[in-house]
């Protein structure tokens, strides 16, 4: 079968397969970067979500086509047609919930999983476009996706690694050690421009903690700073946020 622009827009067995495969491919591509980063959602999850999203669109178009053919009588009697966008609109909703389940707030005032969640949303949206047979959009999106998964992480790393700013979450043995740590930062010529202190709760289980926003002197690596702070005996737990 010759695949011209016109035949691609029609819904046949071949174009359905093509659209589903396109959606899976795009979803898998987004998921690939997540898998490489050892993130929870592998590329299969992205492929399945993208394919499902494409299927909603194809199904809606299929039902719409039936209205002008097999269902013509009902359409005339009732006087209503079908909203083709209705199924796919709920995909946004449903994937929003699904993605929300992946975002987690750790006990250390930190949120993780947002990038994975938004990648999942993006792959669902691409699936909808592919399902609609909107190949022009797919062709435009493909390079954008490729750039954002291959180039942008490196740029982000490059910037973050060289940034003198860092946030540290520290748990102390006792509240009074906060002062000692501040003295230590001063000795290291590290500027503390924000402290968020969480005092010990009434029960004995939680330790007092603080989140420091720091500005490191030049040539001090983030990991070195963590190691130096961790070496203090009153520091019970530490991590970079």
């Amino acid at each position, binding site marked *: 079968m010759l695949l011209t622009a016109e035949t691609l827009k029609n819904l046949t067995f071949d174009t*359905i397969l093509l659209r589903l495969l396109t959606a899976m491919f795009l979803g898998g591509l987004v998921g690939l970067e997540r898998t*490489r980063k050892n993130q929870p959602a592998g590329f299969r999850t992205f492929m399945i979500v993208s394919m499902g999203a494409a299927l909603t669109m194809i*199904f809606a178009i299929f039902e719409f086509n039936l209205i002008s053919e097999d269902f013509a009588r009902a359409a005339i009697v009732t006087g209503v047609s079908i909203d083709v966008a*209705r199924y796919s609109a*709920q995909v946004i*909703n449903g994937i929003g919930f699904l993605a929300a389940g992946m975002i987690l707030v750790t006990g250390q005032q930190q949120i993780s999983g947002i990038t994975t969640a938004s990648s999942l949303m993006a792959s669902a949206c691409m699936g909808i476009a592919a399902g609609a047979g909107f190949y022009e959009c797919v062709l435009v999106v493909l390079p954008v996706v490729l750039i954002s998964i291959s180039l942008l992480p490196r740029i982000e790393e490059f910037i973050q690694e060289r940034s003198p700013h860092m946030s540290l979450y520290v748990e102390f043995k006792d509240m009074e050690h906060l002062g000692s740590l501040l003295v230590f930062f001063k000795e290291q010529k590290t500027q503390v421009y924000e402290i968020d202190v969480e005092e010990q709760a009434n029960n004995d289980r939680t330790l007092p903690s603080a989140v420091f926003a720091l500005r490191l002197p030049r040539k001090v690596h983030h990991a070195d700073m*963590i190691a130096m702070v961790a070496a203090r*005996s009153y520091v019970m737990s530490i991590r970079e946020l």
Partner: protein
Amino acid sequence: MLVWFDDLRHVTAHAIVLRVFLSMLSGGLIGLERSFKRRPAGFRTHILVCVGACITTLTSQFLYLNLHYPTDMARIGAQVIAGMGFIGAGTIIVTRKNVVKGLTTAAGLWAAAIIGLCFGGGFYEGGGLATVLLLFAEILLSKVEHKMLHRAPEMRYSITYEKNEALPAMMSFFRLHKIRVDDMEITRRHKAKEEEDSSYVTALFTLRLPPRFKKNALVEPIGAIDGVLSIDEM
């Protein structure tokens, strides 16, 4: 579109039986693979979700085609897609080590619902193709994914040590071998409540190994550092 389904596009007794049966079959196949891998949502869950979704589009077509109510056929089915997002989110769990699990099951359950919608609406081709593709992704690509995860340049290690000097030694080892420390988390624990001095420290590292750096080449030298008690890959 395939010609041999043409008589089954209307809501007739034959079509109802076929649609429910096909969605049961499809949900069963997807669920079987999950059960086989001992995932929380298995055989029955997928069948129920798929058949339930099938009933919604079947009912809306019945309202529209047979009873001639002026309704949008897509309305009931559309809410299934949103609702399954909720159920799917419920299958996702966060373990104590802040690891998220159950995502593929959630996505599979969600897709199974959409496949059910297609069968219910008489879209046999779409439902069938999607089932095949889904099973393809679940069965064949899971091996590919496993391999990729195994080869992922980013690794997480949990290292326990009792001497503070061990940490700078580790850091210089990482620097020497161009291993990047993406994330680290350090927690100090006391062996016993009374003994203040005898503490040990657990460090969680997220490391980026350079290409062609063997994982074994990391574990042994780190383990040999004075004061390091244990090293575990996570």
